[in-house]
Structure formats: C-alpha cells, structure tokens
C-alpha cells in the first residue's frame, strides 16, 4: 500500500508517494540539490539531511534559490 501524500510546494498543491524524501522531491522537480535550499514547515532542512527526511501529509515546503536583487 503506497499512500499518496498531499503537500504544498512553493504555494502549490503537489502529490507524492509515501516514503518520498526531501532529496527525492528535489530530484523530481529537476533541481540540483547544491543550487537550492529547502524549508519544511518553516524549518530549514539542511542539505545533508535531505536524503533522510521523509515527507509527511500536509507538509508545506519552500524550495528557493538566488535571484537578482538589491
């Protein structure tokens, strides 16, 4: 049984399978882990912890990078 988890990623709903880690999500989004920072429920998930952090139903994630700014 593989339950579907409902997440909010960068403000938009997204579904992933149970057992998905932060690292899996970053890869599924087509992003390079070294170029992004991830916040889960308002707490940073440090890069070394991406692979060991399992997502849970209702998690809110922010996936960010650097953009031009002053």
């Amino acid at each position: 049984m593989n339950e579907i988890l409902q997440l909010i990623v960068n403000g938009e709903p997204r579904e992933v399978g149970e057992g998905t880690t932060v690292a899996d999500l970053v890869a599924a989004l087509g992003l390079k882990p070294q170029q992004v920072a991830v916040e889960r429920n308002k707490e940073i998930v440090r890069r070394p912890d991406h692979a060991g952090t399992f997502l849970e139903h209702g998690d809110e994630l922010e996936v960010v990078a650097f953009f031009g700014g002053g």
Partner: protein
Amino acid sequence: MTLLDQPLVLGSHSFDSRLFLGTGKYPTMQCMVESLEVSGTQCVTVAVRRLQLGVPEGKTLLDYLPRDKYVLLPNTAGCFDADHAVRTARLGRELGIGDLVKLEVLADPKTLLPEPLGTLEAANTLVKEGFTVLCYTSDDPVLAKRLEDVGVTSVMPAGAPIGSGQGIQNPNNIRIILERAEVPVIVDAGVGTASDVAFAFELGAEGVLLNSGVALAKEPVRMARAMKAAATAGRDAFLAGRIPKRLYASASSPTSGVIAGE
C-alpha cells in the same frame, strides 16, 4: 607617492572596493556582468526567491557571479515582518554562501521604508544565530545605535526610499549616525547618480550600496563606471579633509606685490 586606503572589514570579509551593487533590474544578464565588472565591486546583493517549478532550469544567477570575484550578500528584501526575514536569511545561508546577510524588514510595499521594530527584532535574532548582519535601516540615528547595540556588523541607513533615486535627503541625520557609529556605516538605497555616491563618501560613509541607479540608467555600464569614479572621488575627498565653508572670500594669490594700479 602612493595614497592608500584601508580595506573595509565586515566580519570575516575585507573589501578594497567600497561600492556594493545589487543584481536586480538589469536589462540583460550580460549588462549586469559588465556593469559589476566595471564598477569594481567585490560584493553583490542577491535575493532569495521561490524557484518556479516545472520550468526547466537554464543558467542560474550564480553562473554569472564567479565566487572568486564577488562575495554574495543575500538580502531579505520583500519581507514585511521579523519572522519572515529571519526565515529568508536562514535560507540564504543554507544556499551555501556564508553568514553574511543584508537584513531588510520593510513596512509596506509602497514606501519600502524599514519597519523599525521588526528590523531590531530580526537583527537581534540573526546576530544570536551567528549571522554577520548588515542592517538596512531608516536614517534614524537612535535606531541605528540600537541596532549597533544588538550586534549588527554594519548599519545601512537609507539615503532615500529604495529605487527612488533621490539621493541623500537628510544629510544631517546621516552625519549624526556617522558621528556616533562604532561600526561601519554603509549608505544603502536612494542613489540616483554619481554625485549621490560622492556625497555619501564625503560625509564619511564607509561604503555605498546601490542597484537601480546603475541597473535602470540608460547606459548601465557607463553609469557603473561613473559610480566607481564617484566612490573614489568622494572617499578621497573625505580622507583628504575638506576646507571649512566660509561666508567671505579668501584670496588664493598673494595679496602683496600687486603691481601699481591707477
């Protein structure tokens, strides 16, 4: 004879150029690259933003900013309360750039003026978390001192509202901030043209941070060059020590030995 200046030291960083440039609003990335190069800056600000998901990633901003050339200064622009700014600063640090942050907690989108209480609260939190906080603030000398008390590395008073290009509107407040500050003061925001930069340095600012003044100029690269020249001119004029202003004239040529008149 060589006329040297001290480097500007901010936390563990040391800069020979006292000009800080933003990376927003340039017409093209190529224009940004050339403008930064010509300005001689060694430290550029960047924003932390959500990635657009589902859009294939092309070149990222970092591909245009060689790390051996520029220290990156993540900002918390767009944050309207302390908590939001603190979270954004943490994300900036997680992106692997280091402990520098340009803290901005803004009051509202129309004025983009600093929200003083939120700024103080966020500065306090970030200093405790080990950040090197360069703190955007209004030109209020009292708040500048309070920020210094909680341990910010630099106070960065606005010369005028962000992107307004009005230049330094209240030089007396900037002078009071400079006179009392025990940390470097960097004038941030409001720069419209080169004389604004020169004036900030002549007042005694340790640095100037600007973005729109270059990025939105008709010829950004040329304006970047002008800003560099202005920074050098203003800083040198400050170090050289200007003459006092007098009401009446004071002859530059000898007053004796003038040939006979009528």
